[in-house]
């Protein structure tokens, strides 16, 4: 029974974490603009998050230390503080995007301006963190998030030429009329959407709190190896739907509402209902995870008591950080910043900031005094080193590309 819950943790993180507002927007927008020619970036991101989360989960199980605890421990107080600033800022940005995402999704059901929903969503997220039984919630959102599978059904129902889709995905090229910088800027967006740092903060903190031990390592692997690729599969479904319906007729995805159109065209009201439920579940789950992650990063840096399972009064400063973060997210959200733009910036900057947290985890995963026989093996280290190089290139390329393309305009 405990194992089933453990796997649910993986699925929640895969659905609510892998598929969140960032993936929904990035995959649909790239599908519409570039067809399937950027599918490789999703694959690169999925394998990357699998490598990263597996290491973070293993380190958390063996050492009982969550990611940001180790970031500070390895990088020292000073570099750790710079790192905290950057990671917190990006997680905050993601939180704003997710809260607005839930509001936008609710707006699709009840046609009342999403700005009115934002404070309610913020309050609901806080209530859940403050009061609700978390294991129940995991199951609920895990199962609701599965509704996103409808995007894959929709693609099948659209009767695409599979060989053509496959050809576009496997022979990537820059579509005519698009420049290389824009193409790679969107590749970074997809990569960042797949490898958002908060997923790892949440996942590793969950593993510590659920008291995973060495014997849970198989569970860790099952979660990561099953959960994330499943999320990646759904991402590709979103991309393919947009590539089939939008790309040929010149539609660009600028609103969450458009993302539902391919499914609605293929499967009608039932499909639309599924995808909207999926939107709500995924963005709400991600809003919970990002709000908690704001608390995790700060608390773990300073060594404060943190946790979603202990009584709020026993992790007072942690809950204060979560509360303040949510408040800020709601305030920024209702000032009518374009939520889709916030989402795009959050995923692109996520990609740029990845080395900051990936690097310390990679080092600790190789520390024998910590990990004993569970250090990275040679194969894992080869892949992990490859990703270290990729992440460094991405981090260095992000800001110049952002400037060159005017943020993908």
């Amino acid at each position, binding site marked *: 029974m405990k194992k089933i819950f453990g796997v649910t943790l993986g699925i929640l993180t895969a659905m609510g974490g892998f598929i969140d507002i960032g993936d929904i927007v990035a995959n649909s927008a790239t599908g519409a603009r570039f067809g399937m020619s950027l599918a490789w970036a999703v694959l690169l991101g999925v394998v990357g998050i699998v490598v990263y989360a597996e290491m973070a989960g293993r380190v958390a199980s063996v050492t009982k230390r969550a990611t940001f605890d180790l970031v500070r421990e*390895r990088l020292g107080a000073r570099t750790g503080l710079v790192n905290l600033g950057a990671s917190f800022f990006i997680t905050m940005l993601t939180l704003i995007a997710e809260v607005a995402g839930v509001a936008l999704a609710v707006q699709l059901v009840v046609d009342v301006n999403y700005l009115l929903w934002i404070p309610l969503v913020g309050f609901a997220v806080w209530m859940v963190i403050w009061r609700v039984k978390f294991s129940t919630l995991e199951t609920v959102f895990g199962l609701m998030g599965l509704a996103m599978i409808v995007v894959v059904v929709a693609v099948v129902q659209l009767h695409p030429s599979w060989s053509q889709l496959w050809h576009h995905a496997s022979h990537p090229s820059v579509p005519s009329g698009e420049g290389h910088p824009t193409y790679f800027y969107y590749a970074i967006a997809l990569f960042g959407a797949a490898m958002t740092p908060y997923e790892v903060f949440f996942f590793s903190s969950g593993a510590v709190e659920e008291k995973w031990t060495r014997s849970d390592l198989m569970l860790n692997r099952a979660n990561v190896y099953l959960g994330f690729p499943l999320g990646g599969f759904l991402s590709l479904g979103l991309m393919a739907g947009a590539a089939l319906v939008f790309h040929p007729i010149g539609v660009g995805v600028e609103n969450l509402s458009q993302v539902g159109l391919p499914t609605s065209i293929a499967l009608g009201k039932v499909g639309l209902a599924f995808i909207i439920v999926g939107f709500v579940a995924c963005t709400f789950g991600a809003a919970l995870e990002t709000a908690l992650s704001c608390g995790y990063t700060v608390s773990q840096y300073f060594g404060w008591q943190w946790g979603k399972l202990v009584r709020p009064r026993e992790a007072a400063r942690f809950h204060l950080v979560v509360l303040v973060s949510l408040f800020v997210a709601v305030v920024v959200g209702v000032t009518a910043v374009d939520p889709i733009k916030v989402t795009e910036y959050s995923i692109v900057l996520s990609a740029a900031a990845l080395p900051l947290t990936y690097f310390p985890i*990679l080092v600790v995963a190789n520390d024998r005094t910590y990990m004993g026989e569970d250090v*990275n093996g040679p194969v894992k*280290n*080869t892949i992990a*080193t490859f990703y*270290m190089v990729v992440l460094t290139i991405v981090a260095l390329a992000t800001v110049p590309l952002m400037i060159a393309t005017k943020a993908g305009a």
Partner: protein
Amino acid sequence: MLLSELLGVQVVTTDGDELGRVHDAVLVQDGPMGAQGRAGLRLHAIAVGSRSLGSQLGYAQGTVQGPWLLRRLLGRAPRLLPWRAIVARDGQRILVDLSRISEQE
């Protein structure tokens, strides 16, 4: 004395050679932790080198062995100078007398 007062301080020999900065210190536990009496953690040596990243991450101390690329880049071992070698010390520099350690190495 605080650990932070040692870290990053320039180390110079009595002959005037610059050895780098203090990046870490070796403590030796000479009794069970928390026991009464004088047993406890004593500072035996300071680790000195020109670059700090390797010791911050654990490559220089040897507790982290992989991945290969990082070990190659960061794995240079720091020089350990026994506490006894320190002749004078302030916030800016630590003066060491290498002749005090030669007979022991």
